[in-house]
């Protein structure tokens, strides 16, 4: 099973609040691979908005994505692009 990992720094000023969580989970749900997201020692299901919200990651925190599945690499690339783009928020 393919596995892909990448760590990305949160650049949007408000960190991982509800809307970015929605963006990550909705992106992830478009892929078949499983996704785990970790931050500061906590790991959650990346396809659940509620799980992601519990990370409470602030601006500048590093999110580590780990996808496992046939489209793992594409998923991690899409997420990296999303986070690096600041979720469309003003950076």
């Amino acid at each position, binding site marked *: 099973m393919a596995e892909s990992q990448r760590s990305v720094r949160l650049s949007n000023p408000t960190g991982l*609040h509800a*809307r970015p969580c929605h963006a990550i*989970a909705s992106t992830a749900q478009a892929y078949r691979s499983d996704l785990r997201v970790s931050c500061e020692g906590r790991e959650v299901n990346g396809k659940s908005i509620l*799980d992601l*919200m*519990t990370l*409470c990651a602030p601006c500048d925190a590093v999110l580590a994505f780990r996808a496992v599945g046939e489209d793992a690499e594409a998923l991690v690339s899409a997420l990296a692009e999303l986070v690096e783009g600041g979720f469309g928020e003003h950076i």
Partner: protein
Amino acid sequence: MNFWKSFKPKSCAVHLQAESKEAALAEVVGNLIGGEALPARCKDEALEALLARERLGSTGVGMGVAIPHVKLKGIERAACSLSVHATGLEWQALDGAPVHILCTVLRPDKPGESHDPQRHLEMMQWIARVAREPDFRRFALKVKTKTELVELLREMSAV
């Protein structure tokens, strides 16, 4: 943690009557005003902020829960309401499930004596932890009174 104390029974609802997302948000704003958590003068602005947030993207977070959450000018402390809808409302949630539990939070747009943004973030994190507890979701749908609803939050305060 005593985040549950931000939820006053008078501002909560065990049987929302609304039949749409928009009507539910209006009902919640009315309950917040009725419970004196929100000044009546903020009614229109609060509802418009909540509707605008929904236009930006659904606040349905899955598992039958929505967390409408906006900043509002003119208030000094967060106004919070926990509301239950027995049959569930279409909310365009990511998982497609109807929303039964609404946890609405309107917070000041700037820090103040009664509003610490960092503590507020911690409260939102706590709300997410509570909402993903199956016991919370199950019991919230069974309580009979607003006081029991807030009591349920208190019992969940250790999650």
